[in-house]
């Protein structure tokens, strides 16, 4: 697959006009929404309490995973029994330079996503090469990652043509929710171009 230059440009344009990443805050499980601790448009920092959800007489405070502005707060849900995965508000997180780069890469690279909510680590082979070579080439069938899930370790293998690991989206040994990107890969010949794109974003993006 070749990189679509036009798409990248569009992406950059979109990021410039909308330099946010939107994090929906959903109920992790059922329960009564007992309290809303924030107001519309409020700036919150990571770790700040947002909502209090009660299930089986256990009051649980949901905290912001990222900092940003509270939007689309559903005040009408207060006091109601909510199903799992109900969106209560959004956090509009202003992207830093680094995050903007990641955002672009997430859209342009071939992304290996987490198949399960589990802990992931790099395959030892890849890890040593990553240290040595920075952007190592991986061949089809080679072990990329190890997923530790339900006390079992399952290797995740590379599929498709030989590619280089361009970007790590996760921190090893941490729990990654299913569907989140783990690695970004690209064809070896695309590396110089992507590096130029990154440099461009870094130049253009205002230092925060």
């Amino acid at each position, binding site marked *: 697959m070749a990189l679509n230059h036009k798409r990248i440009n569009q992406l950059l344009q979109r990021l410039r006009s909308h330099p946010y990443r939107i994090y929906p805050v959903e109920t992790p499980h059922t329960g009564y929404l007992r309290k809303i601790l924030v107001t519309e448009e409020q700036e919150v920092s990571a770790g700040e309490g947002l909502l209090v959800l009660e*299930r*089986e*007489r*256990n009051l*649980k405070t949901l905290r912001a995973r990222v900092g940003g502005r509270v939007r689309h707060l559903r005040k009408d849900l207060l006091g109601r029994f909510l199903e799992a995965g109900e969106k209560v508000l959004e956090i509009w997180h202003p992207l830093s330079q680094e995050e903007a780069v990641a955002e672009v890469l997430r859209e342009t690279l071939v992304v290996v996503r987490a198949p399960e*909510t589990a802990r992931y680590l790099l395959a030892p082979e890849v890890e040593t090469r990553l240290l040595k070579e920075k952007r190592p080439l991986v061949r089809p069938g080679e072990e990329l990652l190890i997923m530790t899930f339900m006390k079992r370790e399952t290797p995740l293998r590379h599929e498709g043509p030989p590619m280089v690991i361009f970007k790590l989206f996760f921190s090893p040994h*941490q*729990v990654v929710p299913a569907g989140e990107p783990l690695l970004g890969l690209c064809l070896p010949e695309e590396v110089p171009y992507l590096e130029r794109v990154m440099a461009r974003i870094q130049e253009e993006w205002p230092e925060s």
Partner: protein
Amino acid sequence: MSELYQELIDLWERAVYLRDIKGEDFEDILEVVQHLEDLRHRFYEESPAGMRERLRSLHSKIHELEDLAARTLTPYEIVKIVRHPQRFTLLDILENVYDSYTELGGEGEINIDPAVVVARAMISRRVGDRVYLHQVMVIGHEKGHGEEFRQGGSAKPWGNEKALRYMRLAETEGIPIHFYIFTPGAYPIEDYPGAAQQIARNLYTMAKLKVPMVSFISEGGSGGAEAIGLTDFRLMASRGYYSVISPEGAAAIEAKLREGRPPRELVERCARNLRLTAEDNLRLGTVDRIVPEPPLGARRRDYAFFRRLRYEMIRATDEVVLHTRSLRTFRKYLLSRKDGQEELPEEFAIYVNWELSEDEKEVLLENRSRKYREMGRWAVCGEASRLKTFLEKGHDLGTKVFHGLRYGVFRHSQRAFRRMFEELREESSAFLKPVTDPVKSVYNLIAGKKRRPPRVVSLVERLEEPEELYVSPLALEDRTVTCPNAETHGCPDLWVPDLYGEFCGVCPNCGYHFPLEYQWYINNLFDRGSVREFNEGISSGNPLNFEGYAEKLAEARQRTGCNSAMLTFEACIGGLSVIVAMLIADFRQGTVGVAEGEKFIRACDRARITRRPLLALVHTTGGIRIHEGTLGVIQMPRCTMAVREYVDSGGLYLVVYDNNSYAGPVASFLGAAPYQFALRSTRLGFAGPRVIHETTGKPVPPDYHSAENALRRGHIQGIWDRRELRLKLYEALLTMGGPNLYYR
């Protein structure tokens, strides 16, 4: 001219000292200081005669003020005297009391720990025309007149380790040790080893060190002081203080402050309540003699005081040595001293050789043991009437004979018999039964199911037996809780009845230990119905008449139904009988005072006499109870002595920590244990995060005191899971310990 200037400077120093001690609002001290400072600036403008005149009047003024100050000296002012940079330090003593010395293990700033100074020194005595030189080891804290790198005399763990090393050297060389205690407290860090660990090791060694030891206390800051304080004779400076905690620390605790300074008035009151002066300590029996100082404390140039100190150190050492010899020589020695004299004798009537023979060393250790056993014992409340203790002694004597017969005399033949038995059955697997069976029954109990072979038709009824099972009161609630590790480990919410029932308060997913009440341990660790408490009558009292403490005690007693924070009982684990001493959080946060210490010592004795393993189970301990002052502090050497004697007699002393296990007890009789284990939920260390932050100025990482880090630091031997505690204890009882256990 310069003489006059020197006089002025001296006066100025005295005035400043007075101001520092008594505070700026003391009479017109500020004016006097101001006046002197003016004079200093205008020294050359004034005529010498006029200056002399002024100085004379100021001199009498200051003299007057000093008189007044000495008469109105409060305990907190004594603390300030001790902390004043002008006060004499150990190096001053080495210069002035000893005739020559060589510093060992470092010099000045180039030192493993500049707060601890060790020196090989000579001290001389005149008998008639002859001068005798004694070799001694001098070990103590150096405050350094405000030198930053001395940390005010706060010994780091490796400083205390240095002290220990040279104690051993003195033992090898057979020379007495003179200890000088000038410490506000140990430097509260956890390292390799941690502060508590090292203090415990020092105490454990000092309990049986085979040389005479004399200590002199100027600033006795709790655990830090004890690290070099378990000695045969304890002297104390008349303007020194010896306390369980600094008055400021006590005030912060009393006012429940998290940070900031407690109000001065409260600090004053705490200083008074803590009974930290020399007179108080002599009365409490925590020191043996007071070395008089000038009324406002000795300073670095008080040569008369140093002469006095030299005399007292020699005399104390003499007395310790002579105590190991016949009573007659000792009495003769005492008579040789003209009693009641305030004047310092210029010479000694006799020369005493400080070297001890092997027999004398034994006597020395016995004397030391007796000294610490008796120390502060008067303060024990409850049940401890003379008659009762006597009876108990008689009873113990009885059991001693019985157990001696049973396990001592017959032991030899028993062993031989067992060996034969084992050889006979080597080939068949039948002999394994007795070994594996208890393990299995332990497993079954821990697994929460009693599986007796089914006989009755209804299996279900048989398994129920609800009245037999202990149910934690925490479990009686229909709700769920979130495991603190849910975020990182994805733990499901736990239903409280399951969590505190079957799961033993442990998250089944990540192993997080929720705190449990102490009754849970008593009911789940030991064989059903085997727990029998003893000495429950010994109760915490208020020996210092600490304001407000009696009410707190009464409240704790009423709420818990216990008389102290230490429960001592006999119990069985898988059929093995053990003596257990347990500190519980419910009673004053498991702090240790007179009653707790006494009960622990008696538990040690009981375990020793009946040849049973001794288990110290720490549900929580917050340290030494401040309301009992130094009477609490001396429980550190007292209990460590008892532990040492128990272990030396061939027993098995096991310590298991849980929850918060901090400070004095950990730095002594708990930390001294050869086998220490911690439950996963333990926070173990010397000082809490607040104190560490205040002392070191460094932030404390949240897992600083975790069991894992304690294991990393080598403090404990292993981390146990609460669900397996019973099994682990059982295995430990079978595999560890000395030769004198009844089942060995």
